[in-house]
């Protein structure tokens, strides 16, 4: 159980545009080590969800992974057949989404959906699968699991639906759980319950989690390491305490400074000027250069390489590279 459960190397995922394909994930490399929680954060449209979907080979058509390597639980994802890939999903790797209804069948009782998922991967009797499902419901603290087995998704609250989703996802004890904004649509008290549950499961089952979120508070609660994405590329990566405590990339710094919780009452908030550019407007060189306060000439023309500011913290920024070189 050592080594990375997910390793992505220079992955490019693109969608067709009016003038050729537009890469929405543009050369992303990352690794999720066994048992760890890696948070992939960024604002809407930065490509974080597409990165996760690429790892599971779930990029919706007409999008596709163009180049790069993706290794999931020791297997080359891009080389697997459709049926082999189906066995990986829900087996070694599972995914949960912001909106549980995208993954639950509205006209099937929730219990039998979990039973089906289990029997897809294991040859056991229906009765045995039912017993396991009720155990799982109990484990993710669905109240009255026997009764809930017989309910339809719409009869459950948002929090309970998310619990059912999580039960289904961890049924085969996956080595990697990809959680895409798992608590974003939930009320804050329900979010706290779901985050607590994810943390427990990760500790008990040793499941690694790739957490996709825009919420830096959720990152702080759950992550061991953090990777920050902007306009299709990773800009910073490091331990949670490094990225949230001493961020080096101007974008990460700006994001944290613009949080209202960091400001005093009615104190002027730090703004990142401008708007998040859309994929077809991504600038040359460093993609943050159009909004960056510390921009220098080189940023507008050259793509910054990776600078290691510590053995565990890496940043893609010309200004930081110059500082470190000095």
């Amino acid at each position: 159980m050592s080594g990375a459960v997910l390793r992505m190397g220079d992955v490019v995922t693109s969608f067709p545009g009016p003038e050729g394909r537009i890469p929405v994930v543009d050369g992303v490399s990352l690794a999720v080590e066994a048992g760890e929680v890696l948070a992939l954060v960024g604002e809407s449209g930065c490509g974080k969800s597409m990165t996760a979907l690429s790892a599971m080979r779930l990029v919706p058509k007409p999008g596709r992974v163009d180049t790069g390597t993706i290794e999931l639980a020791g297997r080359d994802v891009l080389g697997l057949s459709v049926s082999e890939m189906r066995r990986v999903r829900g087996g070694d790797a599972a995914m949960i989404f912001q909106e549980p209804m995208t993954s639950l069948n509205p006209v099937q009782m929730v219990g039998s959906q979990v039973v089906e998922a289990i029997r897809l991967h294991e040859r056991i009797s229906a009765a045995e699968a039912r017993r396991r499902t009720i155990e799982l419901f109990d484990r993710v603290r669905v109240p009255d699991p026997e009764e809930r087995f017989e309910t339809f998704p719409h009869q459950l609250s948002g929090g309970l639906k998310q619990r059912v989703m999580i039960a289904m996802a961890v049924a085969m004890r996956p080595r990697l759980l990809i959680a895409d904004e798992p608590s974003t649509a939930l009320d804050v008290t329900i979010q706290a319950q779901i985050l607590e549950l994810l943390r427990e499961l990760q500790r008990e089952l040793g499941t690694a989690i790739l957490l996709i979120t825009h919420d830096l508070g959720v990152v702080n609660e759950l992550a061991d390491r953090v990777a920050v994405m902007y306009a299709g590329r990773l800009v910073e990566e490091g331990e949670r305490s490094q990225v949230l405590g001493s961020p080096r990339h101007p974008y990460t710094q700006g994001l944290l400074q613009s949080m209202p919780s960091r400001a005093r009452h009615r104190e002027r908030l730090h703004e990142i000027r401008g708007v998040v550019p859309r994929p077809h407007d991504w600038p040359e060189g460093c993609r943050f250069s159009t909004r960056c306060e510390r921009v220098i000439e080189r940023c507008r023309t050259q793509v910054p390489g990776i600078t290691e500011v510590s053995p565990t913290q890496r940043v893609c920024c010309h200004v930081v590279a110059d500082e470190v070189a000095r």
Partner: protein
Amino acid sequence: MSDPTGDALLRVEGLRTWFPIRAGLMQRTVGYVRAVDDVGFEIPKGRTMALVGESGCGKTTVGRSILRLIDPQAGRIWFDGVDLLSLGRRELHRYRSEIQIVFQDPMASLDPRMRVRDAIAEGMHSFGIGASESERTERVAAILERVQLDPSQMSRYPHEFSGGQRQRLCIARALAVEPRLIICDEATSALDVSIQAQILNLLRDLQDEFGLTYLFITHDLRVVRYLADRVAVMYVGQIVEEGATEQLFETPSHPYTQGLLAAIPSVDPENRGIAAMVRGDVPSPSNPPSGCRFHPRCPVAFERCRQEEPPTFFRDGQRSRCFLATSDPPPAKPGADSGASARAG
């Protein structure tokens, strides 16, 4: 009838907005969704009041009731000394310009077929602001500039703008009719952090510049602490706690408020560890629990909470609907608290 208070621009008393549940062939009313059930608060001129709570708590219905987009069953809504609920349609029209609302989703509140200039000038025309079309166009340009949009883009359509820019358009449209109260219903909730900061700064600046009063309806407690002067926490149709922002965040008295605050994740790496103090799900407002509506989820509930509805206790300018709260000692002056009439009706 006149408003009994001095500097409050808005004073809501005993507001009740129930929605009938109809069933059967004759569509008889078989019950009510008690969306807002005896709510009261006031906002002084130029201040910001936040109404917070989770989905279904009734905060949005309060906002819509104030605008009379929904007609409440009972209560009073004093706006600058006039009870809006006593007005007829014609009289109400005047006040519609004085109270504006900005919603979470700008695309849902901007007509996609209307040019920005017309969307902003529409309200001015309706309320007789600006003598001519050209004068209104000039005013539109000035307002766009004020919300940091390019006036030369006024003949564009909403879809040509980004999410944050569209929210600026909605704010511009609200400002165009010279309101005194703006209701912001989750106005910054759908925005990315970097854009949210821009909009919060803008709202803050506009408030200082025009002396605006805000009712901020949101579930985002970080924004509340940053922006609001006072906070009212709603749970299943009722205000369970209300007080000055810092005081309420520092010394929450109601177990629900305590649970909400404990559930906000911090971004400080030294400060990790939210607590899921509040168990279970929000109950339905069509069938609220007996006694205290929070008792099924409350970590400290006892027998009395299941049977009796707790009264509101007032202490140090903070009020709490919980048996564990206490009131100031007896010689406290009646009406000294800003929300003193919350239990009326």
